[in-house]
């Protein structure tokens, strides 16, 4: 039982990070029907920028670890916001009325560009996250949970709740939903579609920056290549939950994390060693195929009419 609980905790922490990154994919898709494949790289840039700041501060200023990390995040978030804005302005806006394949290709191009740019700036080596955060662990019913895990879980849920409130309760959120439904009609009603789209990218990138720092802190390292797999998993999570749907991205992310964790932990025992944890990713993607075949619009794709 404690092993099961442990796997569940592992999965939820992993899943909450997937969910945060998936939000960026789903917000952009909801408004532009564009898959922003450069989003994983924005996450990576967020982690790298924060680590540069943290690395420069550690050992020079006598501040608690949490404050230093917070300062790193405070620099990374605006940088990523600017990056998200620029990506949309340069790579997607000129192609908004082009065939849908064109912006998809520029998205992949931007992703490769950012990866190589990061490689030039931060080098090929792994960047270490200094051990300045509390590594204390707690025992809960036989399972171990660390302060960092609790922090990631809580912060993720707060950000998600904040985003839902923004989209559902504010004027900006209403403009986003309107643009998602019918951009031309929204424009006629006085919504500045271009700035709504820019803001969508900016908000998504800010969340990505925070997610990037979380991943770097959790695994203790960052690398110019880290955005690729993270982006792929988050994209899968977004599709699993129903791309374009905010609640779907969160559900999809958490579900994917738990499926991966439980799948890798138990598949060997269930199949008597016939299949092992090498099927971890297969398991997650198998669930994705199943969902797509049975519910092509994702788990929550149809139940909610509005997208944002």
């Amino acid at each position, binding site marked *: 039982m404690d092993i099961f609980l442990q796997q569940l905790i592992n999965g939820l922490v992993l899943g909450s990070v997937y969910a945060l990154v998936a939000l960026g994919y789903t917000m952009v898709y909801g408004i532009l029907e564009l898959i922003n494949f450069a989003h994983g790289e924005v996450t990576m840039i967020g982690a790298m920028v924060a680590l540069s700041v943290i690395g420069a501060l550690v050992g020079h200023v006598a501040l608690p670890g949490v404050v230093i990390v917070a300062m790193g995040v405070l620099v990374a978030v605006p940088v990523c916001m600017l990056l998200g804005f620029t990506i949309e302005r340069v790579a997607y806006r000129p192609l908004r009325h082009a065939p849908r394949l064109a912006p998809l290709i520029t998205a992949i191009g931007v992703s490769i560009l950012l990866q190589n740019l990061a490689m030039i700036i931060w080098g090929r080596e792994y960047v270490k996250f200094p051990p300045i955060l509390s590594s204390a662990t707690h025992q809960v019913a036989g399972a171990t949970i660390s302060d960092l895990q609790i922090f990631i879980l809580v912060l993720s849920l707060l950000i998600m709740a904040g985003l839902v409130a923004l989209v559902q309760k504010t004027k900006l959120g209403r403009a986003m939903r309107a643009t998602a439904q019918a951009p031309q009609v929204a424009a006629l009603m006085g919504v500045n579609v271009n700035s709504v789209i820019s803001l969508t990218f900016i908000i998504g990138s800010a969340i990505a920056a925070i997610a990037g720092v979380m991943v770097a802190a959790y695994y203790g390292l960052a690398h110019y290549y880290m955005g690729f797999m993270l982006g792929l998993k988050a994209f899968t999570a977004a599709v699993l939950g129903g791309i374009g749907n905010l609640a779907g991205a969160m559900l999809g992310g958490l579900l994917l994390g738990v499926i991966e964790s439980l799948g890798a*932990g138990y598949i060997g025992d269930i199949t008597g060693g016939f299949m092992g944890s090498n099927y971890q990713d297969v398991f997650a993607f198998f669930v994705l195929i199943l969902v797509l075949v049975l519910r092509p619009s994702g788990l929550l794709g149809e139940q909610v009419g509005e997208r944002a």
Partner: protein
Amino acid sequence: MTSRFLASILVATLGLSLSACGKKPETSNGELVIKIGSVSPLTGPQSHLGKDNENGARLAVDELNAKGVMIGGKKARIELLSEDDAADPKTATIVAQRLIDEKVAGVIGHLNSGTSIPASKLYSDAGIAQISPSATAVKYTAQGFKTAFRVMTNDAQQGRVVGTYAAKLGKKIAIIDDRSAYGQGLADEVEKAAKAAGAEIVAREYTSDKATDFTAILTAIKGKDADVIFFGGMDPQAAPMVQQMKRLGITAQFLGGDGAQTAEFLHLAGADGEGVIASNPGLPLASMPGGQAFEQKFTAKYGKIQNYSPYAYDAVMVMVGAIQRANSLDPKLSLAELEKTDYSGVTGKIRFDPKGDLAGGNVTLYQVKNGQWVPLETVKSDGQ
């Protein structure tokens, strides 16, 4: 008239540019050019190791050029063509073909077993010698290719030493590998040797060479009370794995292969790396015959040594040595000379057995103590 004139100019320039592409081994000033290929992952998660290999090879090339190389009475200049295979088997065959088309005299690489094996078929068909500084999978030299060589102890030799050692540390052993030709091959050999030494394999788990999350498989292993966890894979996985073990409260001894026995591992794992044991073929850098001199030269130029650069350096020396003895750029002649190599390099004595494996290599076990790799013992592999 004009159009015909233009067409003839076009044909002429085309002919010129084509002849310029035709690989003349001689430059304008009558100097011979020896092209040596170097292949390693220069992008992706293992690019720090890849760059290290390239730097090792480049150091050797620069030194040889500074000293001056003569082939058939003519002055020769060595040119290093460095290619990136991204540690990916498919890309490896593409860049291998590119080097063959460039008519290289020999190839230093690839870094990984998973890339060296598919590429070795192409080099063999083209008759070009390949010396891998770091591919350790048994299969690499067991395919019957006369062109495949390595200057490092193979996984059968390393796995035997590590597996026997693991059985000494504890009776319940869990094994994880990254599903690469190297990780899987080494893990299989360790499993065999540990079982032979009377240990029980309580879990066999798998991950990938791009993963960073191992909490699921580690939790599964935790449930099986392993005394020792062996990981066959590289440092970008080994370091977070060790940290996640600590976080999950797993107290088993972590054991790794040469992919984990790197400076990068120490840097990334930090305090969590303390006590980890890992093996590396060959001798510790400090005990290598030319280790200290190499370290000085290398660090002055490129910074910290990651792992295999001394082997890449020796591989170039061995390759160029064979070309010089053959006194010709004909790959057939230098290949025959390569088999007869008897060279005292930075890493030790280099001689090849009939398969192209390093004859009589060593395996050293290291443990992290106070943030440094400290050699525990060097075991002579059975000199096959």
